[in-house]
């Protein structure tokens, strides 16, 4: 079990469309402690997902720097970022993005194929991950044989199977009903509290946001305000 802190310093991100500059993040700075569960909120276009993608190394900032644990992302090549993501970041998407032709276990196994590992060890880790998310009895089910909540659980198992330092979740409950959302958020809480994962979650849902230890509000690419959740005090990083 490991966790990494995240430090974004004066991050600017500008997109270009038809020669027009579209600033999405405008000198944003943010610090997330190792093992912290932070929620990013804000209206559409405020830069939440962009910040998530930059922290996940899927995109590079126009200026500024991002450090995750000991890695300064802006200094890494695309190849290095790809390798880094596979070892240090777990992604959870709103639409799960499971491979329809693979079973739950095979979907969870995908990130492990990038590791030098025996198939027995892979099987063991997949079984553990599916057990953590409560789907030990659904290993051979295909995504179309699972409910939305179960699909998201498989996606979470896929995100944690490599034991990453950071979990980045982009509206993980956006496509789920209230009850299932609660279950998924409880699972994320578990990963944070029991497994000490640093979690950064983007959401529009205030109820979902209440599960974070800190809620960061973005507005037009800048950090507008942040709130600590008294119900969930931050834990010391391991």
């Amino acid at each position, binding site marked *: 079990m490991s966790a990494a802190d995240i430090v974004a310093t004066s991050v600017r991100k500008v997109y270009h469309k038809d020669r027009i500059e579209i600033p999405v993040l405008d000198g944003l700075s943010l610090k997330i402690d190792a093992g912290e569960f932070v929620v990013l909120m804000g209206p559409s276009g405020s830069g939440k997902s962009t910040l998530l993608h930059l922290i*996940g190394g899927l995109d590079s900032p126009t200026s500024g720097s991002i450090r995750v644990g000991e890695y300064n992302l802006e200094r890494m090549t695309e190849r290095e970022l790809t390798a880094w993501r596979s070892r240090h970041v777990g*992604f959870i998407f*709103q639409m799960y*993005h499971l491979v329809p032709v*693979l079973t739950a276990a*095979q979907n969870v196994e*995908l990130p492990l194929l990038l590791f030098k590992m025996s198939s027995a060890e892979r099987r063991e880790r997949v079984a553990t991950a599916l057990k953590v998310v409560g789907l030990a009895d659904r290993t051979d089910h295909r995504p179309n044989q699972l409910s939305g909540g179960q699909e998201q659980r498989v996606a979470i198992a896929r995100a944690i199977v490599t034991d990453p330092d950071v979990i980045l979740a982009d509206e993980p409950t956006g496509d789920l009903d209230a009850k299932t959302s609660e279950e998924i958020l409880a699972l994320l809480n578990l990963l944070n509290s029991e497994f000490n994962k640093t979690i950064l979650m983007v959401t529009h849902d205030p109820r979902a946001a209440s599960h974070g230890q800190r809620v960061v509000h973005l507005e037009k690419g800048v950090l507008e305000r942040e709130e600590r959740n008294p119900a969930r005090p931050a834990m010391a990083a391991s």
Partner: protein
Amino acid sequence: MALPLYYNWRNLFVRKLSTSLTFAVVATLVLVLCVLLSFAAGIRASLAVSGWPQNVLVLKPGATAESTSIITPDEKGRVVQAPGIAHGADGKMLISEELCTQTSIPRRAGEHNMANVAVRGVDATAFGVHPEVKIIEGRRFEPGQLEVIVGKAARDRFDNLGIGGEVRLGRQGNRLYKVVGVFETGGGAFDSEIWGGRTQISDSFNRHFISSAVLRLDDAAEAAAAISYLNGPFVALESKRETEYYEDLSKTTRDIVALTTVLIAIMSIGAAFAVANTMYAAVDGRRREIAMLRTIGFGRGAIILSFVTESLLVCMTACLFGLAGAMFFSGTRQDFLSNSTWTVLAYELKITPTIALGSLGLACLVGVIGAIAPALRASRVHVIEALRKA
């Protein structure tokens, strides 16, 4: 690290129609290629084992084949003076005077299914000049008798040519010859012929000349001198090594092969486009999946390899089906109507390991060429855009 093979395999069944069409195109390509290559190899093998380098075949100038050649007794007399002619055990010069003609007889398949068979009138010397002719059943024909021996391929392809069988030969088909022997030459052109005594054949067909003379020399190295003499002003005939003659006969085959090779090339390009079309559809349908794979750590190389592998899986499986279809024809004897002799030449269609490997190679090439552009497109999927479009 590559994506697992079962991922690619299962994805093939997601787009059943386009995958099936690509499969059918590649399988057909392989089938046609196999049949073409085995046809060419069969004809080549049949003609390649025909003839000896120390045998010189003499024809009338301008004749393209024995059946269109007429050598008069006067011309025939000058041939014997060629240098280097070998002598048989009986001391006679090994010059085989041969009359080549053809007749139409029913094939085995059905009584109304007639085909031309080559009929060769020879003397006993022919067996010394063509030592590859081995009697495998029965005996040689007796001179002066209405008897013939038949090549093994002819016996297998035509009706009533077994030992004891009877065949009508002659201008009106008015002479009934009895089959007294079956010979083989190891797959050569003679295997598709009927041989009888020259005098009887000449009389039956009312052709009182010879078509060709075959000289067996002491040494193949003397062929050039003999040919020079025979083609010279004194004899004024056209001679060539027997091997060369059969090689020239296979020219038509080479032309057919060349033409069909162009066809195969065009088909291959079409197949590559079919593969590309299927793979482009696969890439476009799986943009989110590709983005997810890139997100969790699969590099561009792994994505390219995955799509090329998927394409190769279709093409190699299709190739196996194509080969299985081609194997259906393998081992069968086919007829080839020579446009030089207007007789049927029997050859064996055979799918050899070389042909199978060549077909597999072509299928793989089509698979790789067809997949490379879609695979590159897949590797360049904009991850964030693809994830957002979800």
